[in-house]
């Protein structure tokens, strides 16, 4: 294999990609837009505060000691309403979660059952404050105390899950579109034939195309991770560098998808559309846009036959779930099988001529 021919071809292919605005848009900008979008949506994942209407003056709340008061305000968004009917109407129509009034020594909470979980949280929290007030009045120091700790790392936010999935989708798009468009474009313009008549081996040409695609994929990864860390508090966990070889194998697999699309279509546009036809539904079913944990079982089963599912899963394991490098071995194996089968199929269907 000639080094000079390889370098020169790689350079030509890379320049061709970087100067193709729509290719760069779909490979980099478009998925990054999704990252920004989903990253912003999910960056504040706490439950919104419960909206509480205080009917008249509720002595119990006013009497809360300073620390309890601040906890109270963390849990509730309090608004004072003097008209009882107006407050109840607001709860009924969903404008507020609960309306509270004092009837003598009794605290009465009017709540709505539309969101049972929220209703339960509201009741439980109010009860805790009433119990606390009772305890304070008894003058007995509390014997038991409660401290709460989240098992998740503070960093375990949606961005951790969103980034690997979107990265998988981005790489799937750029690898498959690139391969499909190159194969079709070169075939249309007879450049493929022209190169065949130059003293370079097929191996050199394929190596240059694969090299550029892999380099672009790694560039996408660097951009995604950099933006995630810098802007959305992404924290990489576990053996995240193990995602690199996984991503490389995934890239090869999607190049093969692109080659297949290029082999069965007649125009460059048709090839890219065909690749998109494979990749976009696959992205949805492989958890690129939403976590599959909440998806029905049948959908999870279907997603197992999609290469992107395994790429996303493996990246998630080492980048967000904190698993060791070994977690990528099975996905790498599965993707290798996919890549081999799809490449063989593409090679079988490949034709030199456009017509």
């Amino acid at each position, binding site marked *: 294999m000639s080094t000079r*021919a390889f370098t020169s071809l790689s350079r*030509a*292919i890379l320049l061709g990609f970087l100067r193709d605005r729509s290719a760069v848009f779909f490979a980099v900008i478009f998925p990054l837009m999704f990252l920004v979008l989903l990253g912003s949506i999910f960056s504040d994942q706490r439950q919104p505060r419960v909206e509480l209407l205080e009917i008249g003056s509720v002595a119990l709340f006013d009497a809360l000691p300073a620390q309890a008061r601040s906890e109270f305000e963390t849990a509730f968004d309090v608004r004072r309403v003097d008209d009882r009917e107006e407050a109840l109407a607001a709860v009924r129509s969903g404008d507020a979660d609960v309306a509270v009034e004092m009837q003598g020594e009794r605290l009465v909470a009017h709540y709505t059952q539309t969101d049972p979980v929220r209703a339960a949280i509201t009741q439980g929290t109010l009860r805790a404050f009433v119990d606390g007030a009772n305890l304070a009045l008894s003058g007995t120091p509390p014997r038991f105390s409660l401290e709460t700790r989240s098992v998740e790392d503070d960093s375990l936010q949606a961005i951790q899950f969103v980034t690997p999935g979107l990265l998988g989708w981005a790489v799937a798009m750029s690898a498959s579109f690139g391969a499909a468009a190159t194969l079709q*474009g070169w075939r249309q313009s007879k450049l493929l034939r022209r190169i065949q008549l130059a003293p370079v081996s097929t191996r050199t040409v394929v190596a240059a195309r694969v090299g550029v695609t892999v380099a672009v994929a790694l560039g996408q990864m660097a951009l995604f991770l950099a933006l995630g860390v810098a802007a959305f508090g992404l924290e990489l966990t576990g053996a995240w560098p193990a995602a690199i070889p996984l991503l490389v194998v995934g890239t090869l697999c999607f190049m093969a998808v692109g080659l297949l699309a290029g082999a069965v279509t007649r125009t460059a546009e048709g090839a890219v559309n065909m690749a998109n036809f494979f990749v976009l539904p696959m992205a949805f079913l492989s958890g690129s846009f939403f976590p599959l944990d909440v998806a029905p079982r049948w959908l999870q089963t279907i997603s197992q036959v999609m290469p992107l599912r395994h790429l996303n899963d493996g990246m998630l394991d080492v980048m967000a779930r904190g698993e060791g490098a070994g977690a990528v071995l099975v996905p790498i194996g599965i993707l290798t099988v996919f890549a081999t089968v799809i490449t063989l199929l593409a090679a079988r269907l490949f034709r030199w001529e456009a017509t």
Partner: protein
Amino acid sequence: MAAIEVRGLVKTYGALRAVDDVSFSVAEGEFFGIIGPNGAGKTTVLELVEGLRAPDSGEIRVLGQKVRPRNAALMPRIGVQLQASSFFERLTAREQIRTFAALYDVSTARADAWLERVGLVEKAGTRVEDLSGGQAQRLSIACALVHDPELVFLDEPTASLDPQARHNLWDLLRGIQHAGRTVVLTTHYMEEAEALCERIALMDQGRILELDSPRALIERLGVESLDDVFLELTGRAYRT
């Protein structure tokens, strides 16, 4: 030794005999034309000779060698222009010819010299998509010649050019042959064949109807131009 020896070449696509028992030879240093209307089989003959397609039967020798299976030893000795748009997308003229130079392991300086020879120095930084038809043709011929081949194949190099650009290109092509190369060119312009070729093979429907010098053909048939030769031979006044 002949640069090209072709004997009994046949290539069929289904029921269509695209090339039907074609034999000819091209001498070293000769400017040889294959002429005929669209669909006559010119391009197919060229692709068979280049080794891009396998013939159903017949024998082909190029520079004394077999062309199939892919003969890597032959590649540096032949130059090919397939069509004006056989370029790497979105590269400039200079990047384009340098890339081809690298494929043949030819120096960048020689690549740039070719750019000058075909008059594209001012367009060196222009992307191939933005070149005019004539400029693109000149660049694609320069890319075919960058490694200084002994034998050059040009497939309709002046197709879709205006007369000015065509005459320009003729000067360039004459220069190529004067440098001692063998040139094989296909065209459907009789005028072009008359102006450039020492001998022409006149093709229609996959067969060679006549093979001689343009002058001899005109004289033999007692007509005024090669256009008339063609009409005389095919007997069809109108073609689609």
